[in-house]
């Protein structure tokens, strides 16, 4: 029956997965063959006509999920691999994690990333919340464009324009005043805030849109001044959205590569940049180890955000 065919497909996908671990293409061939067999069986089976479309849905979805997770699983598994090459499984070890802990450069980069993320996400949350409330309540004409374009455009454009701005305009403008302005932590933070505002604003606005607007009028009607109305009614109700937005901004900042790449200058390192250097210069499973840790961190953030404001994440699209 259908379930058997899906089982064969799952086995085939596992074989494909194993082929990467063993570095052997034969498993991949076997896996693909099994999947094709399952598909053929489904077509040939004369069973219930009604569930055929549903079978294909499951078949394709299983393949899609496997496609999503196999690469990441390989990264994680190889982080425990007792071999310098990411080619085949040799044995279990925690060596790479130990080396990571001793890696000064990596630790500095991690500290930088954390500091940047905390500062950038806090400020972006405040500004983004204001923007979200403003767009919902007052419907301004120019603000939505300013808020959403950094989110929609390819990151490289923002990175590049900020590079020019910081070095060609800000630096010479501030020099006569005695401020030695240069690319570094500050510029990265400013850049991160710029593109994070949009995400927070989207989430906050979505949360407001899902609420009955007359609640805010009711507060005023019953005697609350605008500030009291905000403090006692608006803020508590929007808070889950604000928290979700803050977590999203934090995650985006920790993970950001492109914009940081252009605005960081020389001498400062963040985690993604460090990973980039390692990938290009000397690939060792240390990269796997730091990747695994990073995955766990952002995973925790997303799960928390999902608990606090589940509807807000869906509105992102």
């Amino acid at each position, binding site marked *: 029956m259908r379930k058997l065919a899906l089982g064969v497909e799952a086995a085939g996908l596992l074989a494909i997965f194993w082929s990467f671990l063993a570095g052997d293409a034969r498993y991949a061939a076997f896996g693909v063959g099994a999947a094709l067999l399952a598909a053929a069986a489904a077509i040939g089976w004369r069973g219930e006509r009604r569930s055929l479309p549903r079978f294909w849905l499951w078949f394709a979805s299983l393949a899609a999920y496997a496609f999503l997770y196999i690469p990441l699983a390989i990264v994680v598994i190889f982080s425990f691999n007792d071999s310098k090459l990411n080619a085949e499984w040799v044995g279990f070890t925690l060596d790479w994690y130990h080396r990571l802990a001793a890696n000064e450069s990596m630790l500095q980069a991690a500290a930088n990333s954390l500091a940047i993320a905390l500062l950038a996400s806090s400020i972006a949350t405040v500004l983004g919340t204001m923007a979200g409330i403003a767009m919902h309540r007052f419907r301004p004409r120019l603000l939505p464009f300013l808020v959403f374009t950094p989110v929609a455009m390819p990151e490289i454009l923002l990175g590049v324009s900020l590079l020019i701005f910081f070095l060609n305009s800000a630096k010479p403008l501030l020099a006569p005043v005695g401020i030695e302005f240069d690319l570094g932590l500050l510029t990265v933070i400013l850049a991160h805030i710029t593109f994070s505002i949009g995400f927070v604003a989207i989430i906050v606005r979505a949360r407001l849109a899902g609420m*009955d607007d*007359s*609640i805010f*009028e*009711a*507060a*005023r*009607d*019953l*005697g*609350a*001044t605008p500030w*009291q*109305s905000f403090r006692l*009614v608006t803020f*508590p*109700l929007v808070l889950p959205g604000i928290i979700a937005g803050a977590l999203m901004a934090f995650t985006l900042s920790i993970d950001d590569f492109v914009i940081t790449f252009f605005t960081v200058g020389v001498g400062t390192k963040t985690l993604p940049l460090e990973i980039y250097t390692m990938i290009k210069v000397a690939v060792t499973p240390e990269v796997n180890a730091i990747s695994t840790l990073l995955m766990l961190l952002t995973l925790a953030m997303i799960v928390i955000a999902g608990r606090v404001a589940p509807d807000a994440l869906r509105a992102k699209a």
Partner: protein
Amino acid sequence: MPLLDIRNVTRRFGALAAVDNVSLTIEAGEFFTLLGPSGCGKTTLLRMIAGFDLPDAGAILLDGRDLADTPPEKRPIHTVFQSYALFPHMTVAQNVAFPLKMAGKPPAEIGTKLKEALAQVHLEDKGDQYPHELSGGQKQRVALARALVNRPRVLLLDEPLGALDAKLREEMQIELIGLQREVGVTFVFVTHAQAEALALSHRIAVMNAGRIEQLDEPSKIYGFPKNRFVADFIGHCNMLEAAVIEASPHGLRLDVKGLGEVSAPAAERARARSAGVLAIRPEQVRIAAADTAHELANRFAGRVQDFLYVGDVTTYLVELANGARLEALLANSAPGRARFFEVGEPVEVAWRRDAGVFLPD
């Protein structure tokens, strides 16, 4: 001095006047209703009284004082919103106590007034529940208690019963009347349901396209509509095109299209040859078997075209000899449909001379 004095208030949105030069006064202790179809301006007017909108022209005075510079939170006027607008993150008790807290009342006073308010709407044991745990009718009552707890000068109600099912709606209507009497607060009620307005109000202002068509007691609005709109909007009404043959202080002789000559009571502005509409309520039209002896002034013969049985009454659609069609209401005083008249049966309809109202164009 009237409690609420609305003087020549106009509010425009672009080229459209949502409220067009409206003037009316509301007395203390009244149950006053703004009645009209959607878009007639009743809600806009209500929001201006509450302070969420400012008039473009005219003034709104409370106790003789112009409210123009007073923001909503400073006006002694509270609103019951159509969607109830209960604060979802506060309990019922916290919701109802909110106005008292905003007014800075001491905790002891808040406690007593809160208990009293919840008792008044029969929700004494629901204090610790959250709005999402309540039924529609219960939410309604919390909204009422919250708006009344610190005895505002005026309570505004914006179609509060709209979301309730028919039976609950009728029950709440009765409760509202009782509550208003008990508390003595002036109610300004907005609705498009004319039966509801007739049942609840001391006085009704019928609004249409930003203007007041008629302002009067319910019985006068129903029995003596001033124009075609009011007659048509309130209840069911037979409307027949008519022209005046002869007008005198004692009465009118009308030539009604599809009917013939009809006598009606005198009407202002009616002169010989004025055109207009003769309005007769279906319950005023007596229906009887053909050739029954009638003492009523206006009597015509016809045939039953259709009928509508709704349990307590039956409405007959009668086609008359000269082409006009009339609705006649007959109470079903015997159980089951009183098998009075069938489709196609010849009947006679009649009404008292003063049952018809002539409304000149």
